[in-house]
């Protein structure tokens, strides 16, 4: 049941909305929890057990952390300073042990179900160099729906409780709903417990504003997904599927269109997800902030899949860079090398961990690791060369804050992102290498205008629809980037104008959407991670 399917949008969402509002306020969270498990069961019945296990593990671990902390608070009153310090040390180790066991379980499930086939294949391949007997059995494992998302939410919850950001919740229903809330279980956003759990339990009635604004956001998401992303899909599949037969120019077009497709699809899905949650009065954290206006790769990742970036920053980057070991390393580097390198080395090491995790989170494969390392190297080079850039700019009297230079930086970022997305979409690292080689050695620009593009899964009208959809999204994004809320502006107009806008959007989806005879429903790309 994809978020863009009729089953989800009409009977499922409609029934949940009716049941939710028909229930007394204090039981409405039960409707959401039940709906979430039904949604999960309908999509992936055999893997619901893993979600339940992760929920139970995280809930009891949180309660255990509370108990350890409470015991410490009670005991410390009777102790002197030295005794408190000693007890704090013991309690610290106990809490770390609880966290370690929980992580071992939830990340263990993730690692086994998602990464075992990759590791076993590679280990067997390596061992095959020495022996003909395979050491690890090849298992066909089903990847639980949304495991990469709910595992991060679960781990974030435990770390926050461990760090004392908040106490673990005693209400198992609250923890269960936080981990399983149906709009976000498949593709995120990856929320924090203190962001959504409270709202989910409030059980506020659906207001007219929530209903209309939620529906508008869902419609906007459908526009991006069905008019642009799904229409571009046959072209992208054809170009990347037969990359050895296409010229560099066509492959470059494939990379650009895939970048457009994945943005429209993922951000469109997030609009549907956030709009769905809004129907129940729940504000989910945003996952996109017009990433193609970013003027650096760092800025891009602050605007693209925001909740994943924030999770990795808070729980990986800070955990590594602020650890005692890295503190000592930084100090030594500052003393023995230079203040610049003293600051750079721990950051670079922590950043490596972040991008390693980012890459491997996206999938079990070398290309995903390479994808993480691609961005790591770009950022590392940026950090290393920043002093040189600054000096050069000063020498040539280049104003790095000027509008013109900003445009150049934005374009440069877009080029780097298209490169990254091409690697992401290529079937392997080797295929990416071949694609890049063709772009640089066999570009054949004539293939862009000689009609070749019109024989690669889509026709000229499809290109026009994609371009039209992109222009609409670009205009809306430009207005938003200036700080205006288009929805507020439209909502402030008279009913004729307002409804004209809504009907225009509805009919754009109905007429120009890629669905029905001749189109297979395209699964959300990020739903596969």
């Amino acid at each position, binding site marked *: 049941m994809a978020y863009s399917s009729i089953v989800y949008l009409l009977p499922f969402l409609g029934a949940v909305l009716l049941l939710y509002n028909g229930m007394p306020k204090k039981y409405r969270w039960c409707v959401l929890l039940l709906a979430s498990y039904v949604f999960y069961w309908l999509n992936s019945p055999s893997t619901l057990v893993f979600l339940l296990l992760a929920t139970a593990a995280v809930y009891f671990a949180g309660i255990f952390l509370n108990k350890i902390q409470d015991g410490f608070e009670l005991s410390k009153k009777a102790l002197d300073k030295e005794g408190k310090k000693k007890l704090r040390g013991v309690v610290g180790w106990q809490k770390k042990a609880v966290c370690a066991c929980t992580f071992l379980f939830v990340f263990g499930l993730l690692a086994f179900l998602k990464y075992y086939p990759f590791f076993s294949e590679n280990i067997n391949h390596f061992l095959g160099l020495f022996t003909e007997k395979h050491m690890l059995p090849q298992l066909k494992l089903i990847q639980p729906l949304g495991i990469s998302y709910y595992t991060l939410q679960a781990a974030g919850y435990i770390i926050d409780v461990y760090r004392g950001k908040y106490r673990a919740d005693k209400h198992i229903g609250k923890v269960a709903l936080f981990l399983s809330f149906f709009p976000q279980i498949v593709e995120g956003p990856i929320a924090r417990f203190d962001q959504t759990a409270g709202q989910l339990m409030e059980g506020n009635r659906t207001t007219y504003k929530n209903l209309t604004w939620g529906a508008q956001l869902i419609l906007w998401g459908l526009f991006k997904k069905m008019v642009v992303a799904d229409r571009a899909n046959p072209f992208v599949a054809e170009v990347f599927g037969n990359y050895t037969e296409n010229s560099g120019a066509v492959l470059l077009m494939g990379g650009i269109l895939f970048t457009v497709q994945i943005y429209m699809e993922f951000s469109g899905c997030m609009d549907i997800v956030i709009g769905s949650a809004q129907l129940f009065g729940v504000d989910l954290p945003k996952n996109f902030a017009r990433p193609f206006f970013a003027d650096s790769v760092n800025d891009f990742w602050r605007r693209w899949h925001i909740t994943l970036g924030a999770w990795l920053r808070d729980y990986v980057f800070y955990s590594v860079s602020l650890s005692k070991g890295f503190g000592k390393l930084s100090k030594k580097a500052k003393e023995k090398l230079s203040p610049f390198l003293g600051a750079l080395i721990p950051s670079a090491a922590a950043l490596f961990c972040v991008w390693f995790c980012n890459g491997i989170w996206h999938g079990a494969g070398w290309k995903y690791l390479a994808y993480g390392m691609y961005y790591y190297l770009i950022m590392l080079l940026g950090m290393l060369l920043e002093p040189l850039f600054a000096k050069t700019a000063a020498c040539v009297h280049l104003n790095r804050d000027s509008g013109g230079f900003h445009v150049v930086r934005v374009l440069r970022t877009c080029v780097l992102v298209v490169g990254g997305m091409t690697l992401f979409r290529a079937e392997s690292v080797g295929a990416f290498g071949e694609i890049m080689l063709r772009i640089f050695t066999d570009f054949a620009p004539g293939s862009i205008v000689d009609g070749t593009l019109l024989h690669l899964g889509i026709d000229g009208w499809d290109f026009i629809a994609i371009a039209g959809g992109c222009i609409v999204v670009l205009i809306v994004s430009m207005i938003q980037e200036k700080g205006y809320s288009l929805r507020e502006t439209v909502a402030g107009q008279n009913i004729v104008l307002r409804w004209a806008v*809504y009907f225009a959007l509805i009919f754009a989806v109905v007429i120009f959407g890629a669905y029905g005879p001749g189109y297979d429903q395209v699964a959300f790309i990020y739903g596969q991670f």
Partner: protein
Amino acid sequence: MENQKKTTLQNVTKCIVFILLLAMLLMGVSYLMAPKDNTKESGITNPNANGFYSEPKNSIDVVMIGNSDAYSGFSPMELWNACGYTSYVSAEGLQVPAGSLAMLKRILDYQKPKLVILETDGMFTKTDASQNIVNAFNAVLGEPFSVFRYHNRWKKLKWKDLLRKPFYTAHCVTKGQMLSNKVKGYTGEEYMVETDKRAKIPGSSIIAVKQIQKLCAENNMELLLLEMPSESSWSYKRHNAVKDFAKEHHLPFVDLNLDRDRFDFDWTTDSRDGGNHLNSAGARKVTRFIGEYLKEHYDLPDHRDDPNFDVWHEDFKAYTEQVKFTEDD
């Protein structure tokens, strides 16, 4: 409190008006986007199945609806040649009963058949939930929003197509049958092995077939359930299930997978794809048998000597030519 009630009422009214307006606009756009002809070039889906639009109004006495088994195994021109009955097969690949119902509703806008034959294989086709909802909606309302089917015609739409009245020009001499002279026989074991087990008919199919039965009753049409020979999709369990259904709903059911010697059927020569669909030779044998059955059980008019139907003689000649020149694969 009073104000709140008033606001709620206003909001509910706005929602209802919005939905009604949307429905009206969708119907309007559906009219604009719908093909105004039944040729392949017009963009109509399954032009062969929709060829009944080009037949003179109320000239068809028998229609067959169903999936690919129907358009492969039933030959309206052979039925004409053998019995003089005018028939059309409005079958589509993977047509489920809800789709058959929608098709029958469209047929009834142009034709008044005396007999409807429903090929039952489609009753067991599993469709995803989204498609079930669309099918159920179309089955009940007769596809008022055909824009969802024909929306992609925006690419080829011409201004003159938008408002002109439908004018159907495609003349299908096979009357919906798909011809194939390819022979790829089935040589495996007998698949109709008697059993007491029953296959499960999906609920959506049961609802749709009941609707078809109701529609037939309302329009004084007889309904016959029929199953074409098909080794790969049919079984005795399915036979039992449809037999029970037919008995329960007082419908005749003919299963051509049983006693195939009645019509000299030979799986080694009469299939085009190893036992799934029939070829033209198989369709000829099956249709002649159906003709005999219809003669025996229904009072259908023989139009062969009726000058109003002379065009059918011409069509039969064209059909035999087509059979001759249809490639073997």
